[in-house]
């Protein structure tokens, strides 16, 4: 037993706490940063197609309805706009997800 034993114990205490945080608290700051980056990239990819797919889906659905009801081209036009709106809706949701993750 020497005089600096309590000091050494305190250091050990700090190291134990750090180890516990590493295991339970999970990741360090940079790991979270890179995860956020890849999430942003993924969100960009998600947005890239929504409009096109929305419009094409609307056109297809409208064409089907028109074809079966003989109302060309009205439902095609209506559903095209609905599809566009749906695409915009999906993009807005994606954008909100990104904001939520960034916070």
């Amino acid at each position, binding site marked *: *037993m020497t005089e600096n034993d309590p000091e050494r*114990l305190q250091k050990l205490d700090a190291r*134990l706490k750090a180890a*516990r945080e590493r*295991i339970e608290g999970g990741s360090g700051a940079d790991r979270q940063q890179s995860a956020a980056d890849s999430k942003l990239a993924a969100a960009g990819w998600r947005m890239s197609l929504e409009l096109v797919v929305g419009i094409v889906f609307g056109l297809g659905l409208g064409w089907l309805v028109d074809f079966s009801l003989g109302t060309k081209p009205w439902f095609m036009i209506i559903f095209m706009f609905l599809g566009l709106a749906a695409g915009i809706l999906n993009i807005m949701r994606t954008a909100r997800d990104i904001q939520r993750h960034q916070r």
Partner: protein
Amino acid sequence: MPQLDPTSFSPQLFWLAIAFILLYLLMSRLVLPRVGKVLGQREERIQGNLEKAVKLKAEAEEVLAAYQKSIADARAEAHSALNQAAAEIAAATAAREADFARKLAEQTAVAESRIKVSKTQALADIRTVAGDLAAAMTSKLTGVTVNGSDAGGAVEAVLKERA
């Protein structure tokens, strides 16, 4: 585009279903439980080591506390022993002083009483000597012979007058 050839659809769908179901079964039954087990064991082990370290640290702290307590105890014991010794010494000193004072008082009393006795003796002697002296002086001066006891009475009277 070969992708749009509808004759390729049904075989691809069929084999995709086979492949994916096979993959799912392999992963869920065989592969993932193994990986999960290894990860679980590691976590347990790390947790165990950490707990052991925490326990050892607690033990070390306990030992340290016991050590500090024993030092404090020893110090307190020494202190009380010291206090006791000091008190004993003080008591002995006081007793001896008291004894000395008592003895001194006794001796003083004896000496005082002795002085008193010799003083009264001396006073009585002075009376007889003064009476004798007065008788001798009277006879010498006047030629009258004075009785010793008369002279003594006269001296006594004078002493009483002056006292």
